């Protein structure tokens, strides 16, 4: 029988996560599973919410970062709301996405697209000519163009610029 190689253990991963205000809350988890039983998408996830917490503690970084689960999270905050220990799991998952991107794990195209819109126009979504005319017809105020120097500067100071490779 072929043995599957064991995933690499990164002992510093949990320590790194605990560095933030949000990540610190992971320490309080006692694996009751309330998060997974409250999660509307847990049954579809390859790693369940309570398992994500345990894998972080075990330093199993790669399986988490490569999981579908961190992108399947609907960010509904039900786990965070119901956690008896105050673990901020939804926010932890959002920061796992950030780490995954930093480590070069392929990211959904939609993320890049949102970043591009934000960088180019200052908004997440832009107005098509049709929608522009429709707003006018409905006598809704015109959407002014945004001065994008702020969003561009912010982007340059953060990871958005790396994703768009504009730095």
């Amino acid at each position, binding site marked *: 029988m072929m043995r599957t190689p064991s995933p690499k253990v990164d002992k510093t991963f949990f320590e790194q996560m605990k560095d933030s205000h949000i990540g610190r809350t992971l320490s309080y988890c006692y694996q009751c599973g309330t998060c997974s039983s409250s999660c509307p998408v847990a049954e579809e996830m390859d790693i369940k919410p309570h398992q994500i917490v345990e894998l972080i503690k075990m330093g199993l970084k790669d399986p988490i970062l490569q999981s579908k689960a961190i992108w399947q999270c609907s960010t509904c905050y039900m786990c965070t*709301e119901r956690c008896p220990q105050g673990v901020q799991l939804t926010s932890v998952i959002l920061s796992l996405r950030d780490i995954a991107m930093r480590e070069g794990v392929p990211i959904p195209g939609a993320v890049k697209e949102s970043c591009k819109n934000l960088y180019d126009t200052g908004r997440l979504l832009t107005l098509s000519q049709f929608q522009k005319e429709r707003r006018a017809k409905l006598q809704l*105020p015109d959407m002014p*163009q945004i001065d994008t120097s702020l969003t561009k500067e912010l982007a340059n100071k953060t990871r958005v610029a790396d994703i768009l490779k504009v730095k």
Partner: protein
Amino acid sequence: MKYGYYPGCYVQTRMLQYDLSARGVLGKLGIEIVEISDAPCCGPAVIKSVDQYMASGLSAHILALTKKLGLNAIVTLCPECFSSFTKINTSFKDDVKFAEEVNHMLASTAGLQYEGGVEVKHLLQVLYDRSDDLSENIVRKFNRLKAAVHPGCHFTRSSTSYYPDDPENPKMLDQLVENLGIESVYWPLKLWCCGAPTLSFDRDLSLKLAAKKLSSAKASGAECIVTACPYCQMQFDQNQSIIEKRLEEKFEVPTVLFTQLIGLGLGLSPEEVGLDMNRVSPDTILKFMK
């Protein structure tokens, strides 16, 4: 009190009926608003996934802009924007180091800093606070129309240190529509997510979630769904026919924004609340109107 009016990117570009009906309702009640439409994106979950500081920088910048306009409160239509701003107000209080870092970044880019002090409200709260005023101005009611009320996750669970409503048993939106003679039905999946946030990451999963919610609403006897979020509205209304095709099952549940119902109640016409822009025909709802 004057509010800074921040409809958000999605409402302004894709959900014009929300912008239209919200302005109509605010106008009818004489609630004064100041446009802050030239402000950038609020820094929603998709940006938080990339960089927390980018997202927080945007949210804090908008609150700082609001303050600069001499306003002490901002009203949002989108729960996602509501949650972005609420998180800034709470995290700036809970985590001083984080607030300093974000402000340092803002000072060097926009020359602005956010010191707190802008009250963040979803339109739902603003109208709820004016319930008496609202009741007095109702000219038409919906005669016992049964509705599955869906306030939206990012409104009810926007932050763990600030709750606009009971997170396990939200009632504000229910009470608002009950004032219009509508009956809010019990539906088991009321608190569940509509699936919209995963739409661009895992389409199947997202539509499956919406389908579960639609089934739950229908099985509970609801004749319509009432939303307070442009994304939930998109999921239940615009995507309903896609879901029906995929599952080969008919739902035919009209979905309306709460501002459309309230607007109708206040005497606005179906066109004035943009009802013609809803995909699933809301005609059955109009039949209940008296």
